């Protein structure tokens, strides 16, 4: 049998390779200075989903909530092996905190229909909250397995996974459908040349219309034809609005976000003087006491 695995991913600013000022004077993130990338742990989640496809046979559906240009991560997912993509986009979604985001994603999953697994990266490098995955499971009322490294087995109605704990690892089993958050435990496969050559043409309906922005209305028919063409070749990226997924407008975007950012502080850690410790029992003992006293240890 074939399973359905939904992977929710996020396009994030690359906090590792900062060009220019990362923050605007008002304390918000300066996205223009930060190249947009595939959130690293979401790539691990996608890789795990693709491994499940290789091992057990599965349809891998990738969804993301974001602005229209977030299709970049969806195409990148297609290049790696995803089968179907959904862009959840609407001005109404803007300014969402984790609560509003997980609500929107839950509507998206419900609209998609039947699934066996939902995979998310543990957390995104822009917010580092690790809340969206668990909240999504709660909203869908399905069990959750957090911090998963690998799937040991998958069958019709249950899954067993592995996660590392201090001093070893544990094996967990859960009935499906289930949501997992995935940590960096695999090496994401590279994008595939043949898939790039095919799926670089994948478009949402809005992108297709934009490609034809200069055309006059007599092209409308050819536009429809082209959209049908994309569908036939499995190159159409679904584009769903808040209304499409039946989301309550009051629960998405800024209105649905109780989190209010009070203040953002840029903390710069400066290095102090170096200190040498004698490699003797006494020297080490002194150091440990000192660390305990200033609460670095204990």
């Amino acid at each position, binding site marked *: 049998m074939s399973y359905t695995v939904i992977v929710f991913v996020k396009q994030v600013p690359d906090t590792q390779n900062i060009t220019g000022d990362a923050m605007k004077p008002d304390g918000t993130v300066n996205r223009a200075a930060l190249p947009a990338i595939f959130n690293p742990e979401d790539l691990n989640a996608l890789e795990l989903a693709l491994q499940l496809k290789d091992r057990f046979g599965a349809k891998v559906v990738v969804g993301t909530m974001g602005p229209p240009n977030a299709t970049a991560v969806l195409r990148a997912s297609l290049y790696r092996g995803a089968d179907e993509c959904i862009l959840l986009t609407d001005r109404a979604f803007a300014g969402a905190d984790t609560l509003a985001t997980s609500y929107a994603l839950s509507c998206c999953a419900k609209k998609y229909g039947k699934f066996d697994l939902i995979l998310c990266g543990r957390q995104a490098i822009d917010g580092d909250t690790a809340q969206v995955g668990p909240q999504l499971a709660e909203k869908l009322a399905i069990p959750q397995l957090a911090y998963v490294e690998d799937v040991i087995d998958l069958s019709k109605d249950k899954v067993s996974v592995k996660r590392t704990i201090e001093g070893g690892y544990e094996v967990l089993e859960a009935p499906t459908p289930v949501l997992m958050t995935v940590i960096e435990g695999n090496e994401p496969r*590279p994008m595939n*040349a043949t898939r790039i*050559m095919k799926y670089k043409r994948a478009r949402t309906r809005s992108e297709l219309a934009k490609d034809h922005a200069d055309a006059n209305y007599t092209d409308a028919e050819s536009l429809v034809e082209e959209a049908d063409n994309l569908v036939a*070749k499995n190159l159409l990226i679904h584009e769903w609005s808040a209304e499409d997924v039946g989301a309550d407008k009051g629960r998405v975007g800024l209105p649905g976000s109780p989190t209010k950012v009070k203040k953002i502080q840029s903390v710069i850690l400066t290095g102090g003087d170096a200190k040498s410790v004698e490699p003797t029992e006494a020297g080490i003992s002194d150091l440990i006491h000192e660390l305990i006293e200033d609460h670095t240890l204990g």
Partner: protein
Amino acid sequence: MANFFTENKDLQFTLANLDLKEASALRENNYEYAKEFDVAPCDYADAQDNYERVLKVVGEVCADNIAPRAEEVDENGPHFADGVVTYYPLTVQNIKDLDNAGVSGAMLDHKYGGLNFPASVYTMMTEMVSRADASLQNLFGLQDIAETISDYGTQEQKDKYLPLFASGEVDGAMDLTEPDSGSDLQSVRLRAYQDENGQWFLNGMKRFITNGCAKVHLVLARSEEGTVDGRGLSMFVCEKCPELVVRRIENKLGIHGVATAELQYNDVPAELCGQRRRGLTKAVMSLMNGARIAISAQALGIAEAAFFEARKYAEERKQFKKSIDKFPAVYDMLTRMKTKIVATRALLYETTRAVDLRYVYTQMVEHKADITVEERQKAKYWVRVAAVLTPMCKAQATEVANQVAYDAIQIHGGTGFMKDFPVERFYRDARITNIYEGTTQLQVVAAIGGVMQHHNEDRIKELMALPFEGMLARLKDKVATFYEKQLEAIKYVAVKKDTEYQSLVAQCLVEMEAFIFVGMLMLRDALKDSEREVLAERYILDAESQFEERFMRVMSGDLTTIDKHREIIDY
């Protein structure tokens, strides 16, 4: 996230400026394939976009995945026990990454699951793979085996093997060398015979076979009993089986990651691949030409890696209170290394472009019904150009790799002699490049005919006619003087009609030709990008004294080496 493509300015310049329009259109059947295959490009811009996107992926895999594993692969290498070769796990992972990237059938037709890329783009991939791990190139760079089956095999052989090569399900080996047949392949002895049902079998030995443990082998064998020369040889394809025994694998100076095997054929069932008796003259020559390009790219990749390390070290290492790259002796070395690399890259991709055009036009001559005179002439022209450029390029690239690796250690000083830094690995890996697939001396033999017959003349004149001004015009005049002298030297040697003398000075003549040809390529590139003027200037000024030295040797008519070498050697 590093990337060997996007972070290599010269390679990006090369892709952007390499005119593959004609080769790409013909390969894609004037973009008609786009109607049949989702992945086929619909015009040249689309094809270029594909090349660039895929090279970016390969650049990333090479820098992020393969390069960090290279040291461990070098230390461990493949394992051999009970007749079975097992590759080091990280080598297996490298191959898997490249298979996942979908570049295992880069040049194969769309219908076999390949990318149908020109050799030029494939060569860029191999260059990056070599930079990351030179030994891996000996596995990844074996795609010419599938190409040879594609060009010479029967339809059944193509249908059977090519999709498997494209997906990476099978790997290949080309079994040519024997204990007594190295440079002299005409003397190959491995016997091919038929039973009463017409089934072929192979019997004998092969040595120094790269990836001899492969699943699919192309084997050069003597199919005509009683013959002793190249006309009795045919090419066969066979599969890994109990009758094909790996006797041992070699313990080598470098390229540790790949197995180099000695093979014993105990009546191995095989199929003829290509025409009987034309094994050496057709299939092997095509295979070797492809392999020579692959080794040139391997050499260039090693040189790039060595230069990168040398430059980094020279910037970081402080002596006498300043970084050592501030000292003339060191920056002179770095400048020469970089200039040689850029010059070699210019020659390599000019060569692959000729190879691509040769391929599309010779295919046309073989398969097109209504071939025009012009198309036939083009095929002939590109065969000739590729034939002289390929060995010239292999000789230059592989010698440059050795020089650059040597200098890279020199810049590191004592540290470079230690295993703690990767430059000693580059030095060891580079050393085989000017030996296998034909030594530099043999490349000279292959190139000298074309040089003596002025096969580069059209292209050199075409380049000289470009609108150079100012410094570039003055540099062009310098190269034009070289060229006059070259013509004088060629005439001098030709008139002499002394084959021994011609052989003696052949290397000088081929290298002189390369200075001229590459000098013009460097000037051409300087016209396209003013930042490259300094590179052209440095190359041509450096070439001057080296050219003059060779010119003097050729024109000396000095026969003392021929007459007295024995006495000197035996003293």
